[in-house]
């Protein structure tokens, strides 16, 4: 996609009607509905059901009809909306100029200076807030678990952000390092009985070691090729985890991994447990809340180190590499080492997150490290706006908490009947959401870049100038 933008989009995009043309809108909506009908045949209109060894078909034309009518109405509403907006603003449609070259970033793309302290405050007080809302520790379990899940993805996003956002190396196999971290802790603790606090750094080192091993052969590759090779590496690691039964116990995974301890004090109900030692009543939630703060600290360390690195020569070299690799070489930068450090450091944080995952779950299996995970993490980075730390955090919240909220939409059962399970549609909507977000904001939520050093006046750099890297 290196060719310059050619705005030869079809008539319906370029010619935003200045007034709402009902006839044209009706016609276009009808065509859209017709295409939907075509797409629904036969995949929606007939459902294959199994009866013994035979397949038989059940028609669902009523469903197709509902969907086609729905699409028709939505398209019509969209036309009406676009027409009124065009009349209100009298500006070109969103497709005319996908990238305003020197446009001021919109209010959305600015990071308010209050945002970061606010986020941090909420993150720190989160378990307390939930406790106050829910009224008891046990009832806040779901929310704290969700908080842990979000923070895990925030950390993974920040880790991958080093590789993709800063160094511009497109990595589709990041989950491999997450897996290496998780299995490192799982194997080291179950075979050698090492504690989490020893395994955590070891997992990071092992993961960064793998980052370099996998990074080395792909140094020459660029863009989509790099993405595909890293994807292949990720899949190879997963398949090896499945098939190397002697080491990893195969698809069954490793269970009864030791739980986290409060720096050596176990979260048990016994006399030497955390609760007894500190004079609390025993509650399993102590461990969960401890895990929450543990991942919060790990994520903040990731963030702190990344921010630090950005201001160091290595971080500037990463960004320079993303902008122009050839110019980097001409300035004496060892691009090989620079890329490898990006892979290694990114992988290290993936490894930390992985061993956290293992200690939290108490169980690891290859299933947790499939390609979808890599895709989710990459989507978090890209949606966040590559290189933007706060953007990644927001994107992680949106992409992880959003689908999770679907579980709670139980009222939909009342609409669609008892057999309706909103959770089934989680990934369907996730995929569609990914497309929609890319179309809506290809550069992510926060596309601005903060300069790493300032002489007189700090000026944010418009996302349209920032390159996305060759590799």
């Amino acid at each position, binding site marked *: *996609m*290196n*060719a*310059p*933008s*050619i705005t*030869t*989009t*079809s008539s319906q995009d370029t010619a935003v009607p200045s007034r709402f043309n009902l006839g044209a809108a009706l016609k276009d909506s009808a065509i859209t509905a017709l*295409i939907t009908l075509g*797409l629904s*045949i*036969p*995949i929606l209109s*007939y*459902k*294959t059901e*199994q009866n013994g*060894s*035979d*397949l*038989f*078909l059940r028609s669902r034309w009523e469903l197709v009809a509902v969907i086609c009518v729905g699409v028709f109405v939505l398209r019509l509403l969209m036309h009406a909306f676009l027409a009124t907006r065009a009349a209100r603003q009298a500006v070109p449609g969103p497709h005319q100029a*996908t*990238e305003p070259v020197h446009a001021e970033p919109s209010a959305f793309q600015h990071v308010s200076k209050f945002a970061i302290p606010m986020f941090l405050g909420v993150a720190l007080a989160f378990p307390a807030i939930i406790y106050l809302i829910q009224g008891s520790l046990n009832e806040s379990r779901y929310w704290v678990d969700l908080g842990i899940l979000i923070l895990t993805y925030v950390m993974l996003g920040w880790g991958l952000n080093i590789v993709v956002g800063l160094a511009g190396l*497109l990595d589709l196999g990041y989950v491999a390092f997450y897996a290496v971290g998780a299995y490192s802790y799982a194997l080291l603790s179950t075979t050698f009985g090492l504690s989490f606090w020893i395994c955590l750094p070891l997992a990071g080192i092992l993961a960064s070691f793998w980052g370099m091993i996998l990074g080395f*052969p*792909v140094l*020459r*590759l660029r*863009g*989509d*090729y790099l993405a*595909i*090779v890293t994807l*292949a*590496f990720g*899949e*190879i690691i997963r*398949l*090896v985890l499945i*098939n190397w039964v002697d080491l990893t116990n195969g698809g069954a995974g490793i269970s009864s991994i030791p739980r986290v301890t409060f720096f050596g004090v176990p979260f048990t109900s016994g006399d030497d447990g955390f609760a007894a030692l500190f004079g609390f009543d025993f509650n399993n939630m102590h461990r969960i809340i401890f895990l929450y703060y543990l991942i919060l600290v790990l994520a903040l360390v990731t963030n702190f180190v990344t921010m630090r690195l950005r201001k160091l020569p290595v971080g500037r070299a990463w960004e320079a590499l993303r902008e122009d690799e*050839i110019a980097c070489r001409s300035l004496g930068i060892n691009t090989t080492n620079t890329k490898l450090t990006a892979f290694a450091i990114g992988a290290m944080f993936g490894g930390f997150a992985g061993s956290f995952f293992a200690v939290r779950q108490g169980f690891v299996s290859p299933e947790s490290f499939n390609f979808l995970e890599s*895709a989710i993490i990459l*989507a978090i980075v*890209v949606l966040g706006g590559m290189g933007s730390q706060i953007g990644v955090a927001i994107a992680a919240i949106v992409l992880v908490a959003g689908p999770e909220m679907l579980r709670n939409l139980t009222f939909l059962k009342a609409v669609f009947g008892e057999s309706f399970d909103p959770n*089934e*549609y989680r*990934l*369907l909507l*996730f*995929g*569609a959401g*990914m*497309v929609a977000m*890319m*179309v809506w904001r*290809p*550069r992510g939520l926060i596309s601005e870049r903060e300069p790493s050093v300032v002489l007189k006046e700090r000026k944010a750099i418009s996302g349209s100038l920032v390159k*996305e890297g060759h590799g």
Partner: protein
Amino acid sequence: MDIFLQQLINGLTLGSIYGLIAIGYTMVFGIIGMVNFAHGDVFMLSAFIALIFFLILTTWLGISSIVLALLIVLVLSMILTSLWGWAIERIAYRPLRGSFRLAPLISAIGVSIFLSNFVQVAQGARNKPTAPMVRDVIVLYQSEAGYTVALSYKQIIIMLTTAVLLTIFWYLVQKTSLGRAQRACEQDRKMASLLGIDVDKTISLTFVIGAALASVAGTMYLLYYGVVSFADGFVPGVKAFTAAVLGGIGSLPGAVLGGLIIGLIETFWSAYFSIEYKDVAAFSILAIVLIFMPSGILGRPEVEKV
């Protein structure tokens, strides 16, 4: 020797299927320089479309001639899958053209996730087995130990269909103005549009052709294995992409050649080494080819411009 011959036949059959999918990857990459990540799922979707039509034709309409049924299924599946190919390009890729380079790739991953889950929701998560459509085999050779080398009718159908469609398709891109427009867009899209080529239409047609060939592959896959599931898009997709890269991405004969090679490697690997690691082998080949010979067998090497 017997096993070798049998695996050769099996490998070529499988390879034709991969080759058909690979063409979709290679053409799209050639013309807009993106890896159409969702292509494998389009293939899977087409297998489902074929399955449903096959059931309609045989159980509801009572068509007993398998060849006739297959032919109708093939045509219908090609038309409807093409519509999907067109719609995907229109919705998920066209608005991103000329934008941030990563955006289409992310969008394609989104489409891939959407498609496989769409099929899962619409058709259920279980494998869909069909009764074998074509059972007859020709025994080519029978060894004294009782081992037979057989060429089944369905293998013949698959290889023949592939060959015929490839010839038609080859004619289309080499001899018609569509093919010329396509090649022009590959070289320089901006210049092509200045010379009056409808770039959007050409790109749409590329997706349509790619999807149509994927649907042939999907139908053949169903015929060959007799079972399909919503998750069947990813791995064949990756293997076909490997084939496209191995053959030299952007090169059409390369895609077919790459497909055949990958098919052969896979069957031989499964026969002689370990079947568990056959996907590892495929992914390893992909990595090795991309790293050591990124321009593939028939591709043109890229020279770094300073």
